[in-house]
């Protein structure tokens, strides 16, 4: 079970949270094009590596907030409140050999 840091309550067990999809998807104005609207509704990034995501501390303080999580290692590197400045995405560590050989 992951340990998720709520920016209000601190580190708490994953089961208190609900993941709420990719973060920073702005709802476009009603005058937007059909393509822009389709992007907003249905198109999401889902790459290997760090992602900004929304989570909600649903069985806690109830707040939606944002995190930076690595989709392969599951490591959370930042949690921040809605409206706060986005923290930088860390550089991806060079993937060393799975097995190092020594004598």
């Amino acid at each position, binding site marked *: *079970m992951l340990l998720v840091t709520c920016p*209000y*309550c*601190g580190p*708490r*067990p994953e*089961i*208190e949270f609900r993941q709420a999809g990719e973060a920073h998807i702005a709802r476009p104005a009603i005058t937007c094009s059909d393509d822009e609207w389709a992007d907003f509704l249905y198109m999401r990034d889902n790459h290997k590596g760090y992602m900004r995501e929304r989570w909600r501390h649903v*069985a*806690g*303080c*109830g*707040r939606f907030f944002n995190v930076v999580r690595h989709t392969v290692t599951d490591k959370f590197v930042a949690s921040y409140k809605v409206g706060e400045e986005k923290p930088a995405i860390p550089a991806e560590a060079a993937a060393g050999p799975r097995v190092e050989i020594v004598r």
Partner: protein
Amino acid sequence: MSETATRLSAFAGLTLPAVRNRLSVTVAPDAIRYSLRGSPAAAAALGAVFGPVPSTTACRATSAGDRAALWLGPDEWYLLAPDGDAAALAASLSAAIDEPHALVDISHRNVGLILKGPRAADVLNGACPLDLSETAFPVGMSTRTLYAKAEIILWRTGLDTFRVEFWRSFAGYIVGLIAENAREHAV
């Protein structure tokens, strides 16, 4: 004119578990319960008339006499006061707050259990994933969390005393789980 309707507890018909010298489980007495939602300023204004000033520190409860305010979120507090006229008290409290806020009577939505004894934390940890050591969850801490699949509000009122508040329809599930988790402590 009909007779006044009687009150029926959500715990009616349920057997509360107990383990001698290790755990007692009692139903919290009927109380006025409010959900207060608003800014810290609104909460401070309420505190001036309510008694305990709602905490702005996360996950902390304040209490004064028989009234308490539990921090549940940055704009949400859970207020407890002795049973009485909930609508009248709400009106008088709201009148003292200039800020936008919501004060909603949830006296009947929630019910409470008090777990007391040296095994109370262990029995809670049978289904609650939080660290309930005195350092991680000190006396006076309050938070919403989970007891297995039920959402609860957990408030540590003493070293070996916890108050657990939850929606009334979960009473059977939570009492049943507490009993199951308490069982082994009888040995």
